[in-house]
Every structure is written in C-alpha cells, then in structure tokens.
C-alpha cells in the first residue's frame, strides 16, 4: 500500500485537420496565424503540461479527387512553428511529428538538435512512417518505399540520427581563444553508417544539445510500429483510450522493453484523449452531445462513409440507415484518415454491426466512432478518471485533444489541472531548468552503439 503516487504526464495536442476540430464555433480561431500558437502554448504552459504536440500531414487530404472541404485544412511546417513557439515559452516541451520516409537523417537530426538548443532542451520528435505514393508525390525521393519497408527505414533512420547526435561529446566546443583551438582533434567523431537504407560517411555539424538527444515519440499501431516503439521510443502516442484496451496496450509495449534492456519508466504511454466538461454530470453529457453534433455535421458523416465505401453516396440521407450496397474496394480512397487501418470490407462490416445492433443512423454511427469523448463529466470526475488510469497502470497520462483552436485546452488547464494537483499526482510547478526529458521522468540519454549491421 505504500507504493508512491504515480505522476501524471499530459501533452497538449494542437487542434488538427480532421473533424475533431470544430471550426464552425464562433470562437474558433485561425489554424495558422501565430496568435493561435501563442495562445495555445501559453495555455499548455499555464497547465504545466509536459509538451505541446503537433501532428503532420505532408499532403492535403482529398475526398473524391478534390481537396477536402469540410474540415479545417492547412497547417504550419512542424519544426518552424515549434522554433517560433520556443521563443515565447520557457518550460513546456515542443514535440513535432516528422516523417522518416520523406526526410533525410542528417537534415532532420540537425534541425531537431537546433530546436533542442534554441529551446534549452525541450525538443521532441514523433517519428512516423506514412510512406504511400500519395504523399510521396510531393517529394523528390517519391513514394517508392514499400509499405513493408517503412519501419526498416524508420529504425535505421532513428539509429543514424542517434549516432549523429552522439558523435559530439558533452562539452565538445573548446573555443580556447588564446590557444586558437576551437575544436579538439577527433571532435566530433565521424559517423560511418552503412545499412540497407542509408550509406553515409557523415560529420555532424551541430554540437551536442542540452538533452543530448531530443525525446523520441512514436505513433504507429502495427506490430512493427510497437516494435519500433519498444526499441526507440520514449513516449508512445496511441489511440488506445478505453481503460481495458489502454491497459492491454500498456502491458504489451512495456513488456517488450526488457528485450532492449529498458525499464518501465523509460517509456511513457500517452494515448489521445478528448473531453467534455460540465458543472454537473448532466451538463457535461449535454455539452459532449453538442460538441459531437458540431464535429459530425450531416455532410461530415456522409463524407466519412463515402471514404469507407470508396464511392459517391451523396444520395443517402445522413439521418437514415447505412448504405446497403457493397463497398468499392477497387478505388484508391485510403488517402484520408477514415480507412487507414482496415480494409474497406472489414470496416463496412464493423459499421453495419454497430449501426444495426443499436439502430443508429449514418450520422449517429459516425458520431459513435469518431466523436465519443474519452472523458465526460465534472472537473472532479475527470480528474479522478485520469488519475485512475495512471495509478492503475493503464497509461502514464494522456495527449489531450481539444476541439477548438486555439482555446480548446483553456478550461482543462483552469479547472481540471488544479484538481489533479490536489490529488498529489500532478506537478505544482515546473522544476527550474528542466528539460523535456526531465519533465517526462525519463532517464538521461544514453549514448548508443552504432547501428547493428546485419
């Protein structure tokens, strides 16, 4: 009974370009103006969050061959906006989603090391692997990476990035003016890396940054993705938010850490969580319903099923039953978010089962699937729930996803955070000079051995 209170870790997800983000709200602001990022990151810092988090999409979502019109679209360049946020914040971590397929290790490693320097040790990298030809069409290297190879490249990418970061000693810059020695001999060490994906003979040009290495985050759900997470990630951003599901995921991934010589605390799992707050349980439920209805407007619901079905369903009534036709499995529609993880047929069957067993319309079905808030209740109730997940080892905390740009986390920071503090499981202030690694309670970066060549 004397086990210490586990500390809750919270990340603040900047509202994204899918239907979670409600732009029709009269208070909704710009998704690109800097004022929005300023407000959002100040809120995250007021709420003592571990980090602000940005997703990334390297091509505009499309629907039926046209740019998607119904949701917020357009976002900043991940690293550039984080560097700007670094200037106006002092403590909060800065984590960006950055693709391993459409970047080069040297360039990305130097950009992340730069961000770590400019932020005084607050940089993090969510390494994702989206590798399809649709995104590849925007890049000189193209989209020729086979899906099966995406994690092979990601593993090698992360290893090489670590080798580059580790190639400078901690105090590598001598800068002895009278002796005229800026760098000692042998600094930095050369990185000779030869693998299936990269063959470089590199000399890294950014001296070691405050964290040594930026924090690595992972967000893929396949077996390969989890494996990559166990090997390289220090945080996992998952979609496993239901308690049992979250706990199974926690056990699975943390169970794999031993194979890499890592312990439970060296990796934090922070699933996505949405919320609706009310003064009473009843009010919170109403609020949740209201938000869901504005997230899934009739045309949003229809678009969702059109993406799953892969065909034009514009004749269907969003308040009526699901289409009774078969999905068009030939069309390439896996461009958006909707059917990323399962084949169209499997997806349709699941939708049908849900809709038929509960008598749900198209819109209600989509609401159930995409707009069910993780936490609905009074601030007290939400604080208790979050605490339970963490104390019972279902998660280490959450990546909170608000529904409004840029005010989506204000209420959470002002009303829920103080209650988490009262429970003794959330920090009262930022420790002075803490890096992101410190905030997350991660061990200091160990220097890694070079990439194991087969």
């Amino acid at each position, binding site marked *: 009974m004397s086990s210490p209170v586990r500390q809750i870790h919270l990340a603040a997800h900047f509202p994204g370009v899918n239907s979670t983000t409600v732009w029709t709200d009269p208070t909704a602001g710009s998704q690109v103006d800097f004022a929005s990022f300023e407000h959002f990151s100040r809120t995250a810092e007021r709420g003592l969050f571990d980090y602000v988090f940005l997703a990334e999409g390297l091509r*505009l979502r499309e629907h039926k061959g046209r740019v998607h019109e*119904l949701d917020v679209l*357009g976002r900043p360049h991940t690293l550039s906006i984080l560097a700007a946020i670094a200037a106006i914040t002092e403590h909060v971590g800065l984590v960006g989603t950055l693709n391993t397929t459409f970047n080069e290790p040297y*360039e990305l490693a130097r950009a992340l090391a730069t961000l770590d320097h400019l932020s005084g040790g607050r940089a993090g990298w969510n390494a994702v692997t989206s590798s399809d030809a649709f995104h590849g069409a925007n890049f000189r290297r193209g989209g020729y990476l086979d899906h099966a190879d995406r994690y092979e490249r990601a593993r090698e990418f992360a290893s090489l990035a670590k080798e580059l970061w580790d190639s400078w000693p901690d105090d590598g810059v001598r800068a002895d003016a009278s002796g005229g020695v800026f760098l000692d001999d042998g600094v930095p060490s050369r990185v000779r890396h030869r693998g299936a994906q990269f063959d470089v003979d590199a000399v890294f*040009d950014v001296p070691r940054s405050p964290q040594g290495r930026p924090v690595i985050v992972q967000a893929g759900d396949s077996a390969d993705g989890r494996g990559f997470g166990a090997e390289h990630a220090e945080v996992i951003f998952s979609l496993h938010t239901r308690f049992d599901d979250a706990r199974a995921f926690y056990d699975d991934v943390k169970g794999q850490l031993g194979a890499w010589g890592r312990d439970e605390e060296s990796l934090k799992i922070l699933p996505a969580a949405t919320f609706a707050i009310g003064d009473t349980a009843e009010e919170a439920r109403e609020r949740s319903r209201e938000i869901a209805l504005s997230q899934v407007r009739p045309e949003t619901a229809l678009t969702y099923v059109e993406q799953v079905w892969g065909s034009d369903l514009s004749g269907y009534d969003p308040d009526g039953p699901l289409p009774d036709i078969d999905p068009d499995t030939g069309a390439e529609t896996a461009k958006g978010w909707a059917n990323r993880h399962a084949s169209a047929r499997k997806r349709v069957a699941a939708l049908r089962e849900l809709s038929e067993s509960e008598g749900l319309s198209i819109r209600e079905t989509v609401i159930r699937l995409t707009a069910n808030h993780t936490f609905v209740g009074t601030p007290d109730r939400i604080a208790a729930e979050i605490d339970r997940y963490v104390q019972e080892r279902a998660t280490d905390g959450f990546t909170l996803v608000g529904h409004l740009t840029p005010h989506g986390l204000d209420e959470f920071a002002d009303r829920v955070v103080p209650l988490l503090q009262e429970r003794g499981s959330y920090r009262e202030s930022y420790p002075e000079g803490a890096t992101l690694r410190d905030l997350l309670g991660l061990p200091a970066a160990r220097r890694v051995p070079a990439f194991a060549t087969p």
Partner: protein
Amino acid sequence: MTDQVHLAIALERAGWHPAAWRESTARPHELLSPRYWAELLRTVDDAGIALATIEDALSLPDRFDASEPLRRDRVRGRLDASLIASFVAPLTRRIGLVPTVTTSHTEPFHVATALQTLDFASRGRAGVRLVAGASSAERANFGRRSSGVDTLPPSGRVEDSPELLAAFREAGEFADVLSRLWDSWQDDAIIRDVSSGRFLDADRVHAIEYEGEFFSVTGASIVPRSPQGRPLITVLAHQSVPYRLAAERADLVYITPHDERGLAAIRAELQAASDELRGPGERLRVYADLLVLIEETSSAARDAAARLDDRAGEPLASDARIVVGSAADVAEAVRELAAAGVDGVRLRPARQPADVAAIAEQVVPLLRSTQTLREDDGAGTLRARLGLARPESRYVREKVAL
C-alpha cells in the same frame, strides 16, 4: 535626396573574419544559444535594418573550405538557419528574416512550407537566400550523390562545368517550385461557410503538378497562402550563370562589386539578363555586399584587422569588398554605393557582436543624418518595406482567363 538605400546585414556565427571568435568581445561559447541570436536580431531590428540574412551549410566545414584535415582554429558547428529565423520571428518587429537554404539535398516542399510558416510567425517578414550546389562534405553527409564538384573549373566560369550548370538549373527549378507552392492556395481559399458546412473552397486550392528535370511535386502546399503571398527569394551572385538565375527567379540579388566600374558592369549584365528572362512584375532589386570591420578611428580599425589577420595566419580574403575603418568610413562607402544606384547595401560584420553593435549604434545614425537610409512609413511586411508589391497567386490569373 534620391540616392537612398536600404541596409541589410549578413549574420554569420562569430562574424566573417575567420579569427573573429578569438576577440575579447566575441562569445564563442554562445554561438548555439538562443540568447545570442535573440540579442543580435533585436539589435539590428531596433536599428531599422531592413533585413538580416543568416548563413548556413549542411556540413561541418564551410562551403569553400576543403582543408583536410579540418582546421581546428576556425568556428565549427552551427544551428539550422531557417529555425533560427523562426525562433527570432516572435522576438522582432520589423526586420526581414532571410535564412540560407541549400538547394541540392533539401526538399522544395519542406522548404516552401517552412518559409510560409516563417512568414506567418513573423507576420510577413520571411525571405530566403538560395544557394545552388553541394560541397563534397555535404554530399558525404547525405550519401545520395557521390558525384558533384566543389570548385569552379580552371576558367572560373560556371558554364564550363556541366555539374555546376546542373546545380544552377536545379536551383532555378527549386525557386520555381517554391513560388508555385506559395501560390497554390488563393488568398480567399478559406471561406468558413457555416451554411454549406465548407471550411474551404476546393476550387481555390491548386495542385501545382510540377514536372521538371530535378523535381516532380504534385500537390498544393499544406500551408495556406502566407501574409506576403510569396516570401522573398534572394541569391548571392558573382558571375553570369548566377546573375541569370537571379534575373529569372529572384526578387533580390546580392552582388560583390569592388569599385564603381565593376558595379556598372554587373548592373548592365543583370539588366540584360532581366530583359531576356524576367517576367512582368517587379524589377530585380540589387544589393551590394561590403565586409566591414569598425573601430573608433581608421587606424584603430587597421590595427584590429592586423591583429585578426595575424591570428588567422593569413590576410582576410573575401568575395566582397572589405572596408576596414571608422563608422564614418563605412557610411561613406555606403553613400558611394547609394549614389551609384544600388537599391541596398548588405553589410557583413567582420566580428559578431562587436561590428553588429557598431553598425547599429554608429553607422545607421550617420546614414540617417545624411538621409542615405531609405525611411519607410512603418510598412508591415518585408515586401511592403522594400517597395515590392504583394504578388497575386498565378492561379487567380489562370482562372480569369477562362
């Protein structure tokens, strides 16, 4: 007074003299610190300097430094210039932020969106200085292109080296892709039409469908059109091929004349290239570079330069004209260039922060007092400040033509 110029500054770690980091005023341990860059940029912003370029390269040795083994008495290591620019954007008010970007290994899509983001974060003050080609050190870091050249052919002419010519064609395509991506969202693409439930109008967002010798880029930018529409494209040029690149693709070119005749010849060549290659719209803005070392008196400056050269083991050499002297000497050199008709002068401080402070505190007031500095009315964006119109998206024109 018509002979007026804008002042630009070229920021480079400890300064442009290779021994600058050994001066007592230097801060060689802080070259990677956020405070160092924030202070430098604030100083030049407050002084009224129109734009600051920030040097960069994708390797530990400098671009034209093939010394093997690596010389240990030079500043080594740096931060990514584009991210320095984004970092200082919220900390500055008026100054244009112009990071250096190499076009050989980078992706135009990433660079385009980074600059648009800089434009948003700075509220319309973004630009870029494009550099063609890659050094062998850069190639080794990426490992993709083993061939390539580092140096000019014996003739000294880019056109005599097929590899260098290709690198400049690549840079031209790169600039073209940037400007197309910057135009890909019309200004009014975001409609937020609650009644129809549409956030944007897909007809006002355009896939660029670019197919070139070096790149194919299909989609539209992921960033909506930024405050300036197109951030400024700038290049440094010393000879015909880069002059032509500037004339065809840039808003602004930095040149390195050493005297009035040299300047006249460069301007004539730029004019001819512009007549041949430049589309309608703004004329190419021409900025002359000066490398400056400033002390209270001319003789004190010469002493300082001698001390630095001594430490470097060789006299300072530069592509740009070097002015070693008092603030009045530098101001006089700027006035001469203004009288010769350039649009601006870009100063490369020999020592940072010392010469940056001298420029801000002494040179700028001198130029102001003689009305050599082009004053502006508090224009909001970098384009407006330089007198450049905000370009309309090319896709708007296409539509009107239908």
